[in-house]
């Protein structure tokens, strides 16, 4: 609760003469008078709610707690409004943007609780909107500040992944050192040849020795190059494979809510793009960077040894080159980004047109699609030209600057040779070092880009890898408790967004072995109700009991092994029919699989397939019809032999005949287990022991089919509508 306490609260209260009251909460909104951005405060004390705006001291609203009847948060587009209502009129309102909406949803519930019970119990979880260190706005609540990420910690975490391959990376370092030395050797050898052999004509064997040195240097470089390539590629691939492995293991154990909050696309991109960036950097960027550094260092040392004055001449254009490189890479990176996003858009356009080709043809929209394609295509063309133009400018200027350096060296060096202060060999060696020095410089921009991209990739990887997983996913040590199957929902309220409850005060009891039909219009929370029972989500208020024990006290394995759900959108994995059914219980024998398929009325259609149980279902089961998929999903759930079985509109895609068959099977399946059947068709739930009718997140009726029909309530309406559609069929 203390998180809700702002530091300015006491000052505000003193101005109002309320300093003797105990402050329970103090929060700032972000829209003030005339909905301009401002920071009006809402202060809750043990006797009052005060709305106070620092910019306009007159418009202070003081509301006594016992006047308040209700506190609501209305969701607006782009924000929200907190309304405090009295018996007859609104006592106060406060506007805010989406950034602080969730905070006010909590405070509204808190104030209502305070007026009813005299206590204010806030589950204080304040979202971090700004970076704690630099105050900069974050991309997403509680996100990472790209500026203040602890680079050291990030690298340390990455190095943990290097640790198991110590031998390999030490070898890689050694190879890099040798290779850097070998790069320096040829120029020195040529210097010797020029100075001693060409000028003073010494013995042939010295020449042979020098040429041999050259050959040896070239050979070493070639060997090192090969070794470097192999080692770094292997290391990069190995490390990123480890990271992907860790990440996947983490993600599958995330709570459903966490997975909801990440789109599949984003998760996929973490696996593919972010880790690929790291791979690219570790595999080629990092060795290249280290190599260039070593070579540069070596060249500088050798140059200073050869001639300090020439070194100065060589270094003269370096600041210019570095500055220009830095400048142009900023632009180049931007246009390259533009290019890749325009290419992505083009490919989206192509894939959408091809996927929707039937619709396009049916509505004669080929020409429009062509025009649309042409637009995106032209855009790719323009942007690509921009990239080429930019890089062309870049390289011509770089060449010019480098040649400037060469001219300078020829001039200073040439004068020294004329004055006999320098040998021709040394001059030539200096010139060849000059090129070796300049070349890597132009890539530094790219390497630093690849470094920062790798760093972002690493941070995004770590963000996901460090998210908390579901509790109790590890196998429990004690023996699994056998569930009998009685279920109790106690005052359960739940919303995916706390301000928009999907279920309100759900209260019901189910005996073990009962068959319960759940009906209601679509969107009234039937599926949500069952998701709560599987503990895919936690209720916001209230509790759910199985056999009198709160479901939070079961381990997830215990619970989910005994509660099976056949979801609305049946999902099959690519593989055979047998594999898909076996997924329900990996150790099952073939006889058991066949029995489950029989129970789900799937056996006969499976036998009709050419490959029977060995038939492939296609990706996501697309080689089967909707009804066939549903029956396999039912068989899968039946095989798991749960004590509580949930069929979420699991027979909706079946034709009437198959459904009749399933009806018969259901009697067998539901024997001795608690079964929840969510259905649109009344025929499906007619035989249920009891029905629960949901409307707008509340239970509006419950009882047997005949009882409810006699009440002529919601179910009766439903049944009438149903008989009309049946006549139609």
């Amino acid at each position: 609760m203390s998180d809700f306490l702002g530091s300015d609260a006491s000052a505000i209260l003193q101005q109002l003469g309320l300093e003797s009251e105990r402050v329970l909460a103090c929060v700032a909104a972000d829209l003030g008078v005339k909905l301009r951005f401002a920071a009006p405060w809402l202060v809750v004390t043990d006797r009052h709610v005060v709305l106070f705006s620092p910019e306009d001291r007159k418009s202070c609203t003081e509301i006594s707690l016992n006047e308040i009847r209700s506190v609501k948060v209305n969701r607006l587009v782009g924000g929200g409004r907190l309304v405090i209502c009295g018996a007859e009129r609104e006592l106060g309102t406060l506007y805010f943007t989406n950034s602080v909406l969730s905070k006010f949803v909590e405070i509204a519930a808190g104030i209502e609780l305070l007026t009813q019970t005299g206590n204010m119990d806030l589950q204080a979880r304040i979202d971090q909107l700004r970076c704690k260190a630099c105050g900069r706005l974050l991309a997403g609540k509680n996100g990472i500040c790209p500026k203040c990420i602890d680079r050291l910690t990030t690298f340390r975490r990455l190095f943990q992944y290097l640790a198991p391959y110590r031998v390999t990376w030490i070898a890689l370092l050694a190879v890099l050192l040798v290779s850097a030395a070998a790069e320096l050797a040829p120029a020195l050898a040529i210097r010797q040849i020029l100075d001693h052999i060409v000028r003073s004509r010494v013995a042939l064997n010295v020449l042979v020795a020098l040429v041999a040195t050259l050959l040896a240097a070239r050979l070493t470089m070639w060997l090192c190059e090969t070794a470097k390539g192999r080692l770094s590629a292997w290391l990069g691939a190995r490390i990123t494979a480890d990271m992907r492995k860790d990440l996947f293991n983490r993600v599958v154990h995330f709570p459903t809510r966490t997975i909801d909050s990440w789109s599949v696309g984003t998760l996929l991109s973490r696996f593919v793009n972010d880790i690929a960036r790291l791979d690219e950097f570790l595999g080629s960027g990092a060795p290249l960077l280290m190599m260039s550094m070593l070579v540069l260092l070596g060249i500088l040392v050798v140059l200073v040894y050869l001639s300090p004055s020439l070194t100065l001449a060589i270094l003269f254009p370096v600041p210019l080159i570095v500055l220009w490189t830095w400048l142009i890479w900023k632009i180049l990176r931007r246009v390259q980004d533009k290019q890749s996003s325009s290419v992505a858009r083009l490919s989206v356009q192509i894939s959408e047109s091809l996927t929707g080709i039937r619709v396009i043809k049916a509505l004669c929209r080929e020409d429009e699609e062509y025009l649309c394609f042409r637009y995106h295509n032209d855009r790719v063309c323009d942007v690509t030209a921009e990239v080429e133009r930019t890089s062309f400018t870049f390289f011509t200027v770089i060449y010019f600057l480098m040649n400037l350096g060469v001219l300078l060296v020829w001039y200073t060096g040439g004068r020294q040779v004329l004055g006999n202060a320098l040998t021709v060999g040394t001059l030539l060696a200096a010139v060849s070092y000059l090129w070796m020095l300049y070349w890597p410089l132009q890539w530094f921009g790219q390497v630093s880009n690849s470094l920062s991209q790798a760093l972002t990739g690493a941070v995004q990887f770590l963000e996901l890898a460090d998210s908390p997983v579901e509790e109790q996913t590890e196998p429990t040590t004690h023996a699994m408790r056998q569930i009998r199957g009685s279920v109790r929902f106690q005052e359960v309220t739940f919303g995916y967004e706390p301000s928009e409850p999907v279920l309100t005060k759900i209260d019901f009891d189910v005996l073990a072995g009962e068959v319960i039909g759940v009906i209601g219009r679509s969107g009234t929370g039937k599926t949500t109700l069952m998701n709560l029972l599987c503990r895919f989500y936690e209720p916001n208020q209230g509790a759910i009991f199985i056999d009198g024990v709160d479901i939070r006290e079961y381990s997830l394995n215990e619970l989910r092994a005994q509660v099976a759900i056949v979801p609305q959108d049946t999902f099959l994995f690519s593989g055979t029919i047998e594999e898909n059914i076996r997924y329900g219980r990996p150790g099952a024998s073939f006889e058991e699989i066949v029995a489950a398929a029989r129970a789900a009325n799937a056996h006969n259609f499976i036998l009709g397939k050419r490959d029977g149980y060995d038939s492939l279902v296609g990706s996501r089961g697309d080689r089967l019809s909707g009804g066939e998929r549903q029956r396999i999903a039912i068989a899968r759930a039946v095989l798991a032999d749960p004590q509580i079985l949930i069929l979420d509109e699991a027979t909706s895609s079946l034709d009437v005949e198959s459904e009749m068959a399933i009806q018969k099977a259901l009697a067998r399946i539901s024997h001795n287990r608690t079964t929840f059947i969510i259905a649109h068709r009344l025929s499906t739930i007619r035989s249920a022991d009891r029905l629960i009718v949901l409307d707008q997140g509340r239970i509006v009726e419950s009882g047997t089919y005949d009882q409810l029909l006699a009440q002529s309530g919601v179910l009766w309406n439903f049944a009438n509508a149903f008989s009309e559609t049946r006549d139609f069929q």
Partner: protein
Amino acid sequence: MTDQPELAPNGAGRVRLIRQMNGSLSLVLGSGKSFSGISIVRAAPLSRPNNFICFLDSTGQEIYMVRDLSHLSAEDRVLVETELQLRYISSIIRRIVSVRREAGTLYCKAETDRGLRELVVRNADDSVRWMSERRVLLIDVDGNRFEIPNIGSLDSKSARMLRQNLW
């Protein structure tokens, strides 16, 4: 099922809006039927903000639709516009103070009609919505909305900063 909602043709004054004591709005149809606690929404808030305004009853069912705000009486129009302004909290960007792009995300500081504000926008199709060649809607990571009605009418520095970073 409610009856087919009326779509007002040109006849102004066929409906009447009343602001109740408790702050809520009531709607009285030409037929004399009245609804309390109504809400007013735009059918297409982005592309047609001033047309196709719908009146919903307290359960969210449509009661009435106005094709054009000018079809309403002057007083009603003021009420509707006030209500819409309160419901659609979207700011209009007047000047860009700074933009920075990092890893596909824009960090932007802008002067809006509501005052100075910092916003973070992911550079993706659903958060940078080009309504036309010149009009763009930015939806920040929290879901707040910022509109630039005409990128050409911004000062040249702001326009350049945006064009360089948005596409």
